[in-house]
């Protein structure tokens, strides 16, 4: 239980873990976006609540000071001008009311409770300038599905709860609701409630309940301080649908609501659209061909999300951190109002490194956990109760979209990030056990594939055995792990001093690392030595999907010798070439 556990990693229900994480975080220094004073008036004991509020608020960059008034001092604190409450002037006033203190008898009628509550709520609203959080009451026993008879205690509590909901709805500019009954239902009575302490010390709640309640109060604090997240940026492949559109095609991606795992992605789309209805701006940041994505959205029978659901999109092959930075400029919103969801550890790490203010969430590895994880994300950052202030903003955000062209992004240094990844490339001539993989890649790689030719394993073997072909393969790794055999080039000895790059392809798993330059640089040196080659030719044959590598040879220093765009011919004189190998990739040659 020792060790340095941060706020995000620790078990939010465990008091000791939470206290330790708070201590560690405070000692190491934390980026505080705002401060918030919370004052709790209560007729029960909520000992421990202050710690959990502290924890949840600090996780979202809010430094709270929580004061809990003496037990069962409600009206006096509100009425007396010299009370601690008025000295504190809290941002958030919490009324934490237990049923027993309000009604301890079986025969109380709803109207009596309601009139007392209404008096208290109105008094709180008139005597304090704070935002006010109230709660529903917990039913005395579990089965809530059963319609309780009027006059029963359950029936009375439900009637009072209905009234509380209506009151909060009618006063939504000032009041927020914390649904205690909902927490208990969610957590389970055994985990949420402690009848021993309830009776011994009027302290009915166990830590699992307190942390849940505290999380809600922290969200309310964020909302009233205007710190709610405003933009949800989504990746496409393996985030909006299962699979890679550029590789699997519109018919191959997984989004079928009646089939696993497509249904998980379908459900996630539902969650995202629900979040958008709270006034949250959606955006896309994806490495894809824009036309393919738009086409998929328009035509796929199961794709709920449509281009019009997104305020803006960045579908290109650029660095995602730079794209998100540009989005912030375009929407005129701070990066700390952004949440970014992607399936790739690489992208998540890159964005959270370069843009630490953006909250990054990775799609869970176990896809069945994905929809619930997104619901929790929505609850945490796009708190539904906070929609009123935000609703109006959305049209402004759309208008901001038009400013895209003028947005100037202060790009962070991508190279230094790549440098931190310890990227290695093991490059060699394909060996027999690799032929099958090479053939497979030739068939299924559509995006970075300069001139797609599908070869069989036998074709590959024949070329590897011949004297006038060389098959280069690259196996890449970085600090996240190995990506495996991901780059292939087939070079043909076309004339005594001339070689032709027949094929070159790279899996989309390793885009954005500049591996292709290291690979090509090494390939060119090798053929020069091996065959005495003086000129190398190459070709880019445009397909529906390979725009990503359209300029690759030109960027690598090749001269374009044809006029056409559909088939570009390139040539390079090896005698005069400059190295294009990035110095942050370590080459392992075997």
């Amino acid at each position, binding site marked *: 239980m020792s060790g340095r556990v941060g706020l995000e990693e620790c078990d939010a*229900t465990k*008091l*000791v873990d939470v206290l*330790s994480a708070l201590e560690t975080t405070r000692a190491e220094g934390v980026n505080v976006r705002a401060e918030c004073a919370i004052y709790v008036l209560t007729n029960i004991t909520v000992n*421990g609540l202050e710690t959990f509020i502290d924890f949840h608020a600090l996780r979202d960059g809010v430094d709270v000071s929580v004061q809990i008034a003496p037990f069962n001092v409600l009206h006096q604190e509100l009425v007396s001008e010299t009370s601690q409450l008025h000295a504190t002037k809290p941002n958030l006033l919490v009324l934490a009311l237990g049923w027993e203190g309000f009604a301890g008898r079986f025969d109380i009628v709803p109207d009596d409770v309601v009139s007392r509550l209404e008096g208290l709520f109105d008094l709180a609203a008139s005597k304090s300038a704070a935002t006010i959080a109230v709660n529903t009451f917990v039913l005395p026993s579990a089965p809530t599905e059963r319609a309780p008879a009027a006059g029963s205690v359950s029936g009375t509590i439900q009637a009072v709860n209905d009234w509380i909901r209506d009151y909060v709805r009618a006063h939504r500019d000032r009041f927020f609701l914390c649904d205690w009954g909902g927490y208990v239902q969610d957590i389970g009575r055994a985990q949420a409630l402690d009848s021993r302490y309830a009776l*011994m010390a009027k302290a009915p709640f*166990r830590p699992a309940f307190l942390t849940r309640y505290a999380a809600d109060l922290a969200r309310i604090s964020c909302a009233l301080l205007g710190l709610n997240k405003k933009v949800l940026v989504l990746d496409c492949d393996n985030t909006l649908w299962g699979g890679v559109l550029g590789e699997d095609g519109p018919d191959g991606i997984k989004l079928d609501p009646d089939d696993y795992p497509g249904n998980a992605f379908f459900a996630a789309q539902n969650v995202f659209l629900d979040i958008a209805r709270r006034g949250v701006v959606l955006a896309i940041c994806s490495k894809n061909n824009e036309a393919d994505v738009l086409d998929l959205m328009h035509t796929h029978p199961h794709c709920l999300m449509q281009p019009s659901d997104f305020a803006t999109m960045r579908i290109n092959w650029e660095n995602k951190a730079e794209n998100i930075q540009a989005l912030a400029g375009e929407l005129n919103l701070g990066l700390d109002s952004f949440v970014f969801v992607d399936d790739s550890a690489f992208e998540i790490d890159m964005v959270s490194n370069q843009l630490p203010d953006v909250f990054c969430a990775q799609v869970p590895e176990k896809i069945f956990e994905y929809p619930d994880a997104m619901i929790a994300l929505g609850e945490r950052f796009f708190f539904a109760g906070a929609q009123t202030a935000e609703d109006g903003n959305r049209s402004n955000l759309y208008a901001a979209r038009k400013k895209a062209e003028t947005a100037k992004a202060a790009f962070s240094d991508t190279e230094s990030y790549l440098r931190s990844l310890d990227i290695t490339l093991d490059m060699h001539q394909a060996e027999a056990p690799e032929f099958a993989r090479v053939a497979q890649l030739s068939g299924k790689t559509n995006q970075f594939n300069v001139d797609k030719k599908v070869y069989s394993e036998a074709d590959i073997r024949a070329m590897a055995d011949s004297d006038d072909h060389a098959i280069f393969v690259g196996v890449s790794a970085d600090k996240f792990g190995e990506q495996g055999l991901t780059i292939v080039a087939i070079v043909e000895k076309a004339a005594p001093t001339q070689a032709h790059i027949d094929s070159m392809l790279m899996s989309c798993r390793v885009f954005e690392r500049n591996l292709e330059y290291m690979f090509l640089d090494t390939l060119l040196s090798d053929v020069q030595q091996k065959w005495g080659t003086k000129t190398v030719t190459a070709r880019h044959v445009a397909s529906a999907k390979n725009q990503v590598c359209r300029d690759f040879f030109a960027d690598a220093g090749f001269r374009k010798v044809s006029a056409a765009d559909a088939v570009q011919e390139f040539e390079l004189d090896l005698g005069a070439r400059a190295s294009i190998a990035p110095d942050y990739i370590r080459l392992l040659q075997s």
Partner: protein
Amino acid sequence: MTDEALFEKVARTMAVVIGIDQSEIKPDSSMDSIDKWDSLKHMKMIMALEQEFDVMFDDEDVVEMLSVPLILIAIKEKVA
């Protein structure tokens, strides 16, 4: 769990909750010898001990566990 490991874990839990250095928790410490161990901290501490040892103390235990020796006895009874 050995007696030493048990004491170590109890002391750490108490120290974190009470907000003092672990070295201040001695095998014979009690509510009288540690100023910051008040009744509110006591309740929180019981909560934390129950979570750390995955036990549920009886109603009498809760009010009687006012010193380290008594806490150790109560936990041993529960985990035995």
